[in-house]
């Protein structure tokens, strides 16, 4: 227990300083693991987000809906104890919105186009979340310029290879890696 508190405290210090962000990564991961028992972490959110992403890339609306349901649950049960005041503010802004997008994805298994609309905004939410709290794993922020009448949209991926969740099987490799998040 004492160790857990110390880890949390260390994590909190690192969150305040962007310079030590790189070094803080391991600490952050440990803090996340220590807290997993009492609530869900960014890792859980990323996991279920990627579940939706991979389902959409396969044009599988039912599987995306399953991912959406799981994602809405882990967002609702997210453990905020280790967050700084500033991070809590960001999380509060993201939480309700992301949960709603996840719910819409879960209830629209038959309407994959609608799932993708919500996935586009959800991707922005999860990106901002990972930017603020760290993902504990390498993620790629990809961009597809063709989606939504060439307005384009981004998504996060765990692999460097492009697997487009917006165009699915019609254009599976459309897109480029815009940013690598460590």
């Amino acid at each position, binding site marked *: 227990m004492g160790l857990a508190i110390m880890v949390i405290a260390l994590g909190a210090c690192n969150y305040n300083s962007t310079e030590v962000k790189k070094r803080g990564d391991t600490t952050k991961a440990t803090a996340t693991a220590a807290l997993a028992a009492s609530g869900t972490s960014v890792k859980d959110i990323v996991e279920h987000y990627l579940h939706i992403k991979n389902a959409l890339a396969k044009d599988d609306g039912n599987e995306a809906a399953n991912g959406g349901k799981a994602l809405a649950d882990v967002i609702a049960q997210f453990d905020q104890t280790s967050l700084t005041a500033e991070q809590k503010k960001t999380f*509060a*802004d*993201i939480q309700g919105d992301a949960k*709603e997008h996840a719910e819409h994805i879960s209830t629209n298994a038959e309407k994959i186009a609608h799932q993708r*609309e919500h996935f586009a905004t959800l991707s922005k939410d999860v990106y901002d979340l990972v930017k603020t709290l760290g993902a504990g794993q390498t993620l790629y922020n990809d961009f597809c310029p063709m989606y939504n009448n060439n307005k384009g949209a981004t998504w996060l991926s765990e692999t460097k290879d492009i697997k487009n969740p917006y165009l699915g099987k019609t254009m599976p490799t459309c897109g480029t890696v815009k940013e690598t998040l460590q």
Partner: protein
Amino acid sequence: MVAFIVAQFIQPAHNESGQVMPADISKTVSVPQVVDVVLNTACYDCHSNNTRYPWYAYIQPAGWILNSHIKKGKAELNFNEFGSYPLRRQQSKLKSIASQVSDDAMPLASYKWLHKKARLSKEEKVLIIDWATKTNESISSGK
């Protein structure tokens, strides 16, 4: 028949509020009069704190079905409480307003069937889509 008669006595509480609404959308973003008229006519029955109840609302089970639509509609988006949403949710709602109107998903077909005025003309749709899109852009840049 007996069940039908008994049902008539179970009237859901009405969605009506005479209150001043500090979180109303018009207090958060600019809502031109022309847009306001369309929102009032085509959206507010289910997406605000005030429903104009039609005659069939008093006949069950029609009133119950109506009531559940209003409950769901308000949870999804309530124009009278828009200002209380976090900025991110406001943006998502404006985006969804534009896409739902553009896809003809909203107003609901069943609602349009009974409410002639809620059947939006092409011009009215463009008006709402443009307004929602521009408002979304303006609050995004003002972040």
